[in-house]
């Protein structure tokens, strides 16, 4: 018994040390973001001697943070809403229709998940460019196309737990298909909608390559702006680190406000 207590104690210390190592990059980013270049040069490991927000002011302006934040937010929210809307409808229709065609369409969506982004990006951007759709609307359509497969798959799986008798009862009461879906089925799919939303928010918010190819220099998102910002301040670590800290703050807030749902959603998306 004594031996066991001792080993738990060792494990506890080991766990905490590992946790400290794990967050040390964030610690180093934050402490050095308050220093001037000389401060970083003289000692990179210690906390700053004073809390100086000059770096943050300049990084905030150069990142055009308010603009890029709202651009990212608008693109993410619009894409995720559309993905949830259309994927849930499709998941429902495909689950309720038992025909061979229906299962073949589902297979098509699943098979499309095999195709990596780099394999389609060149013709994709060329096509959208030729019809003048290399803009935010085009980007949102692309997110629907790339994101719908996994989402439909998850909705389709969740539908197996929702009995057909519900549809039939509602039809008896005179509801049409659209009403049945929106009033009866969609509310029951809420847990899976949360999963779908979380998986897509994480992906779209952080995505760099697709928006950089589609949006170019206009209406920039946080990752795109961050890329240019970093290029501008290569080796000017004090400014770069302040910018990186600013860029991370929204994600950290998101994580701490809905950690439970995020972890559950990610687990569900991966295990399926």
């Amino acid at each position, binding site marked *: 018994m004594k031996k066991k207590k001792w080993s738990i104690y060792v494990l506890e210390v080991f766990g905490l040390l590992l946790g400290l190592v*794990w967050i040390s990059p964030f610690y180093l980013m934050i402490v050095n973001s308050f220093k001037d270049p000389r401060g970083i040069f003289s000692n990179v490991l210690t906390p700053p001697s004073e809390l100086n927000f000059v770096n943050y002011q300049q990084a905030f302006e150069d990142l055009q943070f308010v603009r890029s934040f709202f651009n990212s937010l608008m693109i993410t929210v619009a894409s995720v809403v559309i993905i949830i809307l259309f994927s849930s409808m499709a998941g429902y229709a495909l689950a309720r229709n038992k025909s061979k065609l229906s299962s073949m369409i589902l297979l098509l969506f699943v098979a499309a998940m095999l195709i990596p982004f780099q394999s389609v990006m060149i013709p994709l951007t060329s096509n959208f460019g030729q019809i003048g759709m290399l803009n935010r609307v085009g980007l949102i359509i692309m997110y629907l196309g790339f994101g719908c497969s996994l989402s439909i798959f998850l909705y389709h799986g969740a539908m197996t737990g929702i009995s057909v008798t519900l549809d039939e009862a509602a039809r008896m009461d005179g509801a049409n298909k659209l009403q049945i879906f929106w009033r009866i089925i969609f509310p029951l799919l809420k847990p899976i909608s949360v999963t779908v939303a979380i998986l897509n928010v994480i992906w779209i918010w952080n995505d760099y390559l697709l928006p950089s190819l589609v949006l170019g220099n206009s209406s920039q998102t946080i990752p795109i702006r961050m890329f240019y910002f970093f290029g501008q301040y290569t080796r000017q670590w004090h400014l770069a680190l302040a910018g990186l800290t600013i860029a991370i703050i929204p994600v950290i807030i998101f*994580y701490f406000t809905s950690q439970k749902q995020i972890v559950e959603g990610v687990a569900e998306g991966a295990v399926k």
Partner: protein
Amino acid sequence: MKNKEMTFWLFITPVLLSLSLVVILPVLMGIFYSFTNWDGLNFTAFVGMDHYRRLIGDEQFLQSLWFTVRFALTSIILLNVIGLGLALLVTSKLKSRNLLRTIFFMPNLIGGLILGFIWQFIFIRVFSTIGDVIGVEVLKGWLSTPATGFWGLVILTVWQMAGYIMIIYIAYLQGVPKELMESAEIDGATPGQKFRHVIFPLIAPAFTVTMFLTLSNSFKIYDQNLSLTGGGPYNSTQMVAMNIVDTAFSGNQMAYGQSKAIVFFVIVAIISLSQVYYNKKREVDL
């Protein structure tokens, strides 16, 4: 009946249309273009297998492919060992287990681009400082050689994704029945024996999931590659995804870049299909 069909199509048309526009049409066109002299807008001639023949002799592409394979294999081993280790740690009786779970998972939510920049600072500035202080030469000049670039990318990827793998292992570990663990304990099994003979066989299905997930994820990495090393020094740490982007958009060789993209597609598809195959086979075995 007709009406029912109508609603079916009404419900699936938006996604079917966007999937066709965004994935299916481009991939078919991409296969076609890889046999032409397409410049991004037009093509004037078929070139047959020329691009693919050129690809076999393209040293930079082959080097990227080899680098990606080495990177992917190293990452999946480390990710699974560390991910499982973290999962065992945070499902133990530690007081700090919830805090640790939060910490280990955190990097996963932040974009690879941003994390790559943070680690660039760690490797270049912090490593060299620590190297100076404790007098270890190995910590100096990180990311300036192919070897340190390689390990830098591995460390970044493992740090970012281990929490994700941990979450998957936790889901399987929670499926291990408590009674089984208790009876093993009563029978006098040591923690090591419990792991080897009780936990390990029960979470074996998790390995197939995480192995292929980490394999295809590490194969497709781009953002981390771009922000941490940018492919440097001298393109020695350039992975396949970046090689394709560079060929097409910096080198402006659209059709040639597309032929690389098709080869990439075939490799990724083979990886994913073997996963489906193994999963099916495992289900049959059970």
